[in-house]
C-alpha cells in the first residue's frame, strides 16, 4: 500500500517534479485559504481565480504556451481585477462580492474568447485544467518562490491581518494599516492562484487553497492549529491525488482536488471540532 503510494515518485522524474510543485503549493496556498475562509471570502477567491484567465490567455496569444508570459499576464490581470473591484466597492454602492462577480464574469468570457482566437481545444484544456505533470524548472522555481514570499508576507502581516479580519473598524481607528494590509492580502491571493494555475489550471486553482482550509476547520480551533492542519491536509491530498492519477490513469489536477474533497468529506463526518459524528453522539454536558 505504502509502496503503491510512493512508487511512481521513485520511478519517474516528472512525478517527483509534480510532487515538489504540489508540496510548495501546499505550504503557501492553504494558509491564505484559512484567512479567506475566516473572512468569508471563500467564494470571492473562486471569482478571483477566473479573473486570471484573460491575462494568462493574453500571454498565451503573445508567446504561445510559455510559462513566464502566461504567469505575468495572469498576475497582472488578477491584481487589476482585485484592485478594480476594491476601487468600485469603495467608490460606488456595490458591495465587494457584487463588483467582483461583475469583473470575473467579464474576465472569464474574455479569457476563453482570447484563447480560442488562436489556440486549439487542447491549449484551452491546458489552461483551464493545468499541466502538473509537465512542470519544468522555471515553473518549480516560480512555485517555490511564491511559497517563500507568501510565508514571509503572512508572518509579517499576521497581526494586522488578524485584526483586519476580526475588527476592521478598530484597526481603522488605531492605524492606517487596514487598507494596505487588505490589498497585500489580495496580492497574496492572486499570487497563489497564479501558482495554483500552473499546477491545477484556472478552474481548479482554488482547490488546494480552500478545500484544505475548510477541512482544517474540523480539526483545529484557533489559527495556530488551523494553519498547520490545512498545510497537512493539502500535502496529503497532493500525495494521494498524484499517486491515484498515476495508478488509475486519471487526469492529475482533478484527482488532486478530488483527493482534497474526499479528505474534506471524511473530516466533516469524523472531525473532532463540530464533525457530524460528534454532533450525533453528544457527550453529557458539564456541571459548569
Amino acid at each position, binding site marked *: 500500500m505504502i509502496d503503491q503510494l510512493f512508487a511512481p515518485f521513485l520511478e519517474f522524474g516528472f512525478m517527483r517534479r509534480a510532487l515538489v510543485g504540489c508540496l510548495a503549493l501546499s505550504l503557501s496556498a492553504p494558509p491564505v485559504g484559512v484567512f479567506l475562509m475566516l473572512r468569508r471570502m471563500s467564494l470571492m477567491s473562486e471569482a478571483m481565480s477566473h479573473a486570471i484567465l484573460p491575462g494568462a490567455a493574453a500571454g498565451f496569444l503573445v508567446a504561445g504556451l510559455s510559462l513566464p508570459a502566461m504567469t505575468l499576464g495572469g498576475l497582472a490581470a488578477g491584481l487589476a481585477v482585485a484592485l478594480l473591484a476594491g476601487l468600485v466597492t469603495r467608490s460606488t454602492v456595490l458591495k465587494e462580492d457584487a463588483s467582483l462577480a461583475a469583473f470575473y464574469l467579464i474576465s472569464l468570457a474574455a479569457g476563453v474568447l482570447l484563447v480560442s482566437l488562436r489556440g486549439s481545444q487542447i491549449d484551452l484544456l491546458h489552461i483551464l485544467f493545468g499541466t502538473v505533470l509537465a512542470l519544468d524548472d522555471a515553473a518549480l522555481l516560480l512555485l517555490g518562490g511564491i511559497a517563500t514570499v507568501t510565508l514571509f508576507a503572512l508572518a*509579517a502581516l499576521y497581526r494586522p491581518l488578524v*485584526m483586519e479580519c*476580526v475588527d476592521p473598524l478598530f484597526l*481603522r*481607528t488605531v492605524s492606517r*494599516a487596514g487598507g494596505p494590509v487588505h490589498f497585500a492580502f489580495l496580492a497574496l491571493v492572486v499570487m497563489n492562484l497564479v501558482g495554483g494555475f500552473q499546477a491545477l489550471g484556472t478552474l481548479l486553482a482554488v482547490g488546494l487553497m480552500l478545500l484544505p482550509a475548510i477541512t482544517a476547520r474540523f480539526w483545529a480551533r484557533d489559527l495556530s492549529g488551523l494553519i498547520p492542519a490545512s498545510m497537512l491536509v493539502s500535502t496529503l491530498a497532493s500525495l494521494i491525488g498524484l499517486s491515484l492519477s498515476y495508478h488509475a490513469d486519471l487526469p492529475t489536477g482533478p484527482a488532486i482536488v478530488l483527493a482534497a474533497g474526499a479528505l474534506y468529506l471524511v473530516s466533516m463526518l469524523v472531525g473532532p471540532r463540530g464533525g457530524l459524528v460528534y454532533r450525533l453522539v453528544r457527550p453529557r454536558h458539564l456541571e459548569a
Partner: protein
Amino acid sequence: MTALRPGAIGLRGLTLGYERHPAVHHLDGTIPAGDLLALVGPNGAGKSTLLKGIVGEIPALDGRVERSGEALAYLPQADEIDRSFPLSVLDLASMGLWRRLGAWRSLIGRRSEVVAALRSVGLDGFEDRPIGTLSGGQFQRALFARLILQDARVILLDEPFTGIDARTTADLVSLIRDWHAEGRTIVAALHDLAQVRAHFPSTLLLAREPVAWGPTRTVLTPANLARATRISEAWDENAAICARDHAGHGHDHAQEHGQEHGHSHALADAHDHATTRDPHHHADHGPAHAHTHRHGDAA
C-alpha cells in the same frame, strides 16, 4: 485658529450626514480637555454620527473637527467584530496594545498587563476563552479591557451600557470615573438620564441641531428635553439645500455671517454657561420655507 490643548476636541461648523441629509447640523463648540461629556438626544438625533465624525469614520459634509493629534479610543455601538473568528479573549484585549507594539513587537512580556486589564473589568480566568463563547455583557467588559490597554487621551463611547446588566454597568461607570480622574477626555452617548445626572458633569443635548450644551443640570431641563423630542427624525426628501454659510471656506465666515444677519450660528467655544438655541429655524427645510438669508454657492 487657536491651538487646542491636548485632549480637547474642536467642532467647527461641523455638519455630518448621509446622502447630503444632515444628521448633525452646524455644530460649533469645543469639548475641553479632561471633560466628561454625555451626548443625549432622541433616536436619530445624531449622537452616533457625531462620534463617527470625530473618529473620522464618516467624512464631514461641511465644517471640520479639530484635534491636537493625540491617541483616540472609540467604542462603537454596533461593532463590526466577527465573533465567530477563533480568537481568545486575551488576544482581543491585546489589540489595545497596537499603538505601543505595532505589527511586530512581541506580546510575550505584556501578558501580565493584559491579564491585569481583564481582571479590572472582572474577567478573571477568561483569558483563553474564545470570544464567541462570551455573553453580551462579558464581551462588553472585554472591549473595555481593550480600551484600558489603549491608554488613550480621548475616549469616545457609543451607548456603552445598552443591554448591560446593572452590576456590569456600575463597574464600567466607575472605570469611566477613574479615567475622568486621570484627566482623559471622555464623550459618551447615553440614554439613561439618571445615569447622566449622577455621573456626567457636562452634557450636549442633540437633536440634529445642538439644543443645549453645558453643565448637566442646566441642560437636562424639562423644557430642553421637550424641545429635543419635538424635532423630527425623518428625512425630508425635498429638503432645500442649506444655504447657511460655514466655517469650511478658509476664513472665519461663520462669525461674520452671524453678525451680518443678526443671529449666531456658533455656540460659544467656552460653554461654561448653558447655551440654548432655538432649533426651529433650521429644523424645517420644506421647500415652502424659503431661506431669506440665502447667499453664497449652494453646496
